[in-house]
């Protein structure tokens, strides 16, 4: 598999994170296959995929937080230093300070028996060496930045006393407290009410822009990514199958899977009663149960024998991994 590599050294300076041939395996079974991409400074990139595509595992591998039993190979270069090769101690200096992650379910991701204030202050005390009082006022400021109502009161509240949206705001405050260079958000709004989702996304984008950070937004929700991100990576079966700017990929998809995803979204301005919902034939196989070669083979209308071998991803800016791309 051909990886991205760093072909252009001057480009490297603009890249916050470069992932090269990242592979995640459960024992001998590979679940993320030689994924490669680069995140530019200040850029918002979306990682799209259904459940089981390996997108969350990719994020966890970058952070070095894979669950027991999973291992990662390849290189994850943060400013030229390979995160996968770092010691736990070195990684701890990076996590929360330079690279931060926001998780999907704030109710379980926050410690239920610890006050919000304490949890939000923690990265500041850890990475900025602040004392208790200083960290507390900085935490209040962080809560104000995420527009949490009554931030001073909320400092003494416990997670279960907040609403879902408020909890996620607290999580965002926690993650952005040290102004990290890269924020990875794993389905940050999926567990929230639809009405709250837009607010949270807007908040996230605002903070990221303000801080000049890069954002890696992981989601299965195409419209969300289309609205928020500039670049998008499409993942299926542990492979990146398409990559490019949001306009290119969503406007003129090259990979059949992307096309199918877009087709499956019902549009409000179409004549609904006369159109059937277009689902993708078949269903997503379980981890480790993908066919050899292109993982989308069994469900692809354009597949044939040559697809038994995994195609390399090719193209210049708008790339796809397919023997029979749409364009």
């Amino acid at each position, binding site marked *: 598999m051909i990886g991205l590599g760093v072909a252009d050294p001057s480009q490297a300076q603009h890249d916050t994170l470069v992932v090269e041939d990242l592979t995640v395996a459960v024992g001998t079974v590979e679940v993320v296959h030689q994924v490669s991409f680069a995140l530019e400074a200040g850029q918002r990139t979306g990682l799209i995929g259904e459940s089981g595509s390996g997108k969350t595992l990719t994020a966890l591998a970058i952070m070095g937080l894979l669950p027991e039993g999973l291992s990662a190979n390849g290189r994850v270069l943060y400013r030229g230093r390979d995160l996968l090769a770092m010691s736990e101690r070195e990684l701890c200096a990076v996590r929360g300070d330079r690279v931060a992650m926001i998780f999907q379910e704030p109710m379980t991701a926050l410690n239920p028996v610890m006050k919000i204030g304490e949890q939000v202050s923690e990265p500041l005390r850890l990475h900025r060496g602040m004392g208790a009082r200083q960290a507390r006022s900085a935490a209040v400021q962080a809560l104000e930045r995420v527009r949490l109502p009554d931030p001073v009161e909320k400092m003494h509240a416990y997670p*279960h006393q907040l609403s879902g949206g408020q909890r996620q705001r607290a999580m965002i405050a926690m993650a952005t407290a040290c102004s990290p260079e890269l924020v990875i958000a794993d389905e940050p709004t999926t567990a929230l009410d639809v009405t709250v989702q837009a607010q949270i996304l807007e908040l996230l984008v605002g903070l990221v822009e303000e801080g000049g950070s890069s954002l890696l937004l992981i989601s299965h929700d195409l419209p969300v990514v289309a609205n928020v991100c500039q670049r998008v990576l499409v993942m299926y079966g542990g492979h990146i199958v398409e990559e490019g700017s949001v306009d290119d990929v969503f406007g003129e998809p090259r990979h059949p899977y992307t096309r199918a995803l877009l087709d499956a979204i019902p549009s409000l301005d179409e004549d609904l009663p006369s159109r059937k919902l277009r689902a993708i034939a078949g269903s997503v196989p379980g981890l480790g149960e993908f066919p050899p070669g292109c993982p989308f083979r069994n469900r692809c209308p354009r597949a044939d024998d040559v697809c038994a071998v995994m195609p390399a991803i090719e193209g210049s800016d708008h790339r796809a991994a397919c023997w029979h791309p749409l364009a």
Partner: protein
Amino acid sequence: MGVQILIRVAWLIVSLIAASILVFAVTNVLPGDVAAVILGTSATPEALDTLRHQLGLDQPAWIRYVQWVGGMLHRDFGTSLLSHSAVGPLIVQKLSVSAPLAIASAVIALALALPMGVVAGVNYRKTSGAIISAVSLLGIAIPTFWAGLLLATIFAIQLKLLPAGGFVDWSDNPLGAARSLILPSLALGLVQAAVLTRYVRSAIVDVQREDFIRTARAKGLTRWQALRRHGFRYAAIPVVTILGIQLTGLLVGAIVIENVFVLPGLGRLLFQSVGNRDLIVVQDLVMLLTAVVLVVNFLVDLSYRLIDPRIRSSA
């Protein structure tokens, strides 16, 4: 929250009453006859009747029940049917043996189980964790009285370091008294430690799988820091709950151990009184033990509600 506490206090009182009825009912179904035990089998029926009347045994059950409960509430525990001495002071005297024994065992158990459980939990995938787990599994299977016998064999009989039984009064020889308690509290404490270790380990293993530990690590905390700052207070909740239940085990173990080492404590008193059909003492002791268990469980339940903020504020 205050209402919740009141409700629980009410239930505690109901439980105590229910327990007292149960205890009274069981002990007074005794076919054995205290009068016969006291006077011997050759006593005449008239003598037996007189004695029964003297001891108040010919009154209807419910009157005796009320007298008993009323007495206890006034700190009058009646008089032993056999020795005619007041039961209250008798209990207090025996407590001077049983209480230090129980406390020493509890301390040993906690001092061993907490660190070992944490180590076993943190290293649950490594050999060190597995070893501790295996040892604690063995420890649970060992009957307390066997542990006592083994310890006595080794330290008392073979090595002649500590007494194999008996007890000197605190006032006569405090050092000797303490020495008499070493082996029994070790036997009891070690077995209890094994049981507790399992629970502590289990709580630590579980908490490490929680999402918020992953979040803590994502913030830059090391595994150990995440466990210490976030995990411990969360894991404390199930452990505290268990401690209350463990108390019952401790009390039972104490009763048995006192008989192994011939310690003149409450356990031995209970045992002897049952054999002598000394109703009053049996009733009082069983009621006392049950009350202690019920009250401690109530307190643990209360503290559990205080520790866990989710319950505290939703009540």
